[in-house]
């Protein structure tokens, strides 16, 4: 069994003690054998509460290819974290096990992880929005930046946002990537900033982020529409309309959407990502009943099919 | 019943009198409703409120459809629409010679003679036009 080394550093006494106790319980039950070491320099993984990206210790750990587990003790702190591995104290044993096994798996392919650490995380902004939406007492303002330092400011209740017009155009076209939101002190919103509707910001961010499914969505999931997006305010394609119509009628898995509409996998993923981030999608339990309902619902009578085809050819909307 | 913005009260009263005369002089009249072309009552004869409101609206729809089909058929202005049923008739006439233009809907039972009904209704409409234009 592979052995990995974990160092716990700059963690509150109670959290550190709890983590060590869980470690004793888990060792032997994890995917690899874990050893606690004192010096982060000797570790493969560093667990720390000092996850400020400007901290030299955390920066050093990341630069040397070590994985960092952020130890947080509040949901506010959790919202500020930009590392994929997070443990919140009080810890749950299964949560710790899951994170350790995930890191162990990740450590088997160090070259892939280091490559992705160099580039921007396309989901940093979206995941921070999701974390923010779960907070019961958010700050008044939050700020995110792209790699050029252009900022977008967002209200803590996620009801409003503001940024330079050029940045919003880049977000719409997917030519920039926003980092995670962090609390900010905003005295006034510059007059030159535009204030696009929040749903439009989230839609454009999510639909351009990646052709892969968002990390919080499962390819094995079955999805149902909660509410239609306003395609009068955001661009739409025929494939998107077809997929949303299908999702409004019944729960669909990505393969079922592909079969029902002929949409490509990237098209399906991008749409599901955008619907999800905008709160328009629910994940349903996929049952045999759904399967037969889905099968029954996808067949359209021959006559209506011909009429629809003719109508579509006549209207020829640009999409 | 009457909206002064559409038809002055004096005219509405005159129109009511004309409808009453039409009803008295023409056997078989069940009810009659004079309305604006957009379906508001101006005057009624023997029509309860709920019925007259519906007749005013439906009469204006019938008149408008008559004029539309007449246009599409390449004919000149529609004058009247006659609906015959087993036990009576409905007559809808357009009154376009005054401002505002109006519609007259008449419901008659089968004792009414269609010819007499049409002639009598025409006279009624002419007297309404005189009253409106003369004021």
């Amino acid at each position: 069994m592979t052995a990995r080394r974990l160092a716990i550093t700059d963690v509150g006494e109670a959290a550190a003690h709890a983590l060590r106790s869980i470690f004793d319980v888990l060792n032997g039950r994890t995917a690899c054998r874990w050893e606690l070491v004192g010096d982060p320099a000797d570790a493969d993984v560093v667990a720390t509460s000092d996850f400020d990206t400007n901290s030299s210790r955390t920066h050093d750990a990341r630069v040397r290819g070590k994985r960092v587990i952020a130890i947080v003790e509040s949901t506010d702190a959790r919202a500020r974290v930009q590392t994929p591995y997070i443990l919140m104290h009080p810890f749950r044993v299964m949560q710790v096990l899951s994170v350790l096994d995930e890191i162990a798996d990740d450590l088997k392919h160090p070259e892939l992880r280091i490559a992705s650490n160099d580039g921007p995380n396309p989901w940093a902004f979206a995941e921070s929005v999701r974390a923010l939406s779960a907070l019961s007492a958010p700050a008044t303002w939050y700020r995110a930046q792209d790699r050029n330092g252009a900022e977008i400011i967002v209200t803590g209740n996620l009801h409003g946002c503001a940024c330079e017009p050029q940045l919003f155009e880049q977000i719409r076209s997917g030519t920039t990537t926003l980092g995670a939101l962090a609390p900010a002190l905003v005295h006034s919103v510059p007059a030159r900033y535009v204030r696009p509707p929040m749903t439009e910001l989230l839609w454009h961010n999510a639909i351009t982020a990646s052709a892969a499914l968002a990390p919080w969505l499962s390819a094995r999931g079955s999805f149902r529409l909660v509410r239609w997006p306003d395609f009068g305010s955001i661009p739409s394609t025929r494939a998107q309309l077809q997929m949303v119509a299908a999702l409004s009628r019944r729960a669909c898995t990505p393969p079922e959407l592909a079969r029902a509409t002929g949409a490509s996998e990237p098209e399906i993923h991008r749409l599901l990502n955008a619907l999800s981030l905008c709160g328009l999608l629910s994940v349903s339990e996929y049952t045999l009943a759904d399967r037969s309902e889905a099968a029954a619902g996808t067949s359209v009578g021959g006559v209506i099919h011909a009429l629809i085809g003719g109508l579509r050819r006549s209207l020829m909307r640009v999409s | 019943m009457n909206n002064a913005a559409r038809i002055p009260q004096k005219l509405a009263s005159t129109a009511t009198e004309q409808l009453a005369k039409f009803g008295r002089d023409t056997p078989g009249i069940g009810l009659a409703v004079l309305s604006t072309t957009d379906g508001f009552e101006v005057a009624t004869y023997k029509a309860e409120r709920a019925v007259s409101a519906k007749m005013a609206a439906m009469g204006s729809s019938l008149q408008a459809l008559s004029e539309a089909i007449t246009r599409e058929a390449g004919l000149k202005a529609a004058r009247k629409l006659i609906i015959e049923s087993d036990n009576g008739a409905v007559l809808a006439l357009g009154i376009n010679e005054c401002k505002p233009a109006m519609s007259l809907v008449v419901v008659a039972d089968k004792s009414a003679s269609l010819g007499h009904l049409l002639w009598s209704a025409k006279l009624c409409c002419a007297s309404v036009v005189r009253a409106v234009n003369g004021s």
Partner: protein
Amino acid sequence: MTDMPELKLVFTGPMGAGKTTAIAAISDMAPVLTDVANSDRAAFDKDSTTVALDYGQLSLDDGTVVRLYGTPGQERFGFMRTILCRGAIGIILLLDGSRDDAISSLDDFLGGIRKLDPMPATVIGVGRCGSSDAPVLVRAKHHLQQLGLTLPMFRVDVRRREDVLLLVETLVCLLEAGAGPETMQ
């Protein structure tokens, strides 16, 4: 062709919402109108009002005619809505977002549509509402949610052909997904 069922789309909604304009935007021919002078300017500041129906049509390449009907908007012509919606395969409900009674209109018209059996596929277009986060749109979405309806509702300008086509295209997608009268399946 006589065996082909008709494809009947109905545009409905309150007065001034743009039904006549929408039909004119996509009809092959100049629509048949039954507009007359509006004598109630206090209630609706419009020169004219539809008192029977608007009629337009789209001819498909196989000779099938898609009939486009517009209903009157005012409540006293509600009987025409009932007549015109019979047999409709799809309904486009247009609302005027600038009016204070936009939400009550939404409620009234949806109530009538839901009574149709079977209920046709329905798409909602809201005009004159500024930005996509306009309060009227937020309230309308909330109202749909309260009614338990997952219907498409889009901010539109029916003077733009593209916007009307979006509404019809969405209706077509709903029909493809199995919405609408089962007799057409």
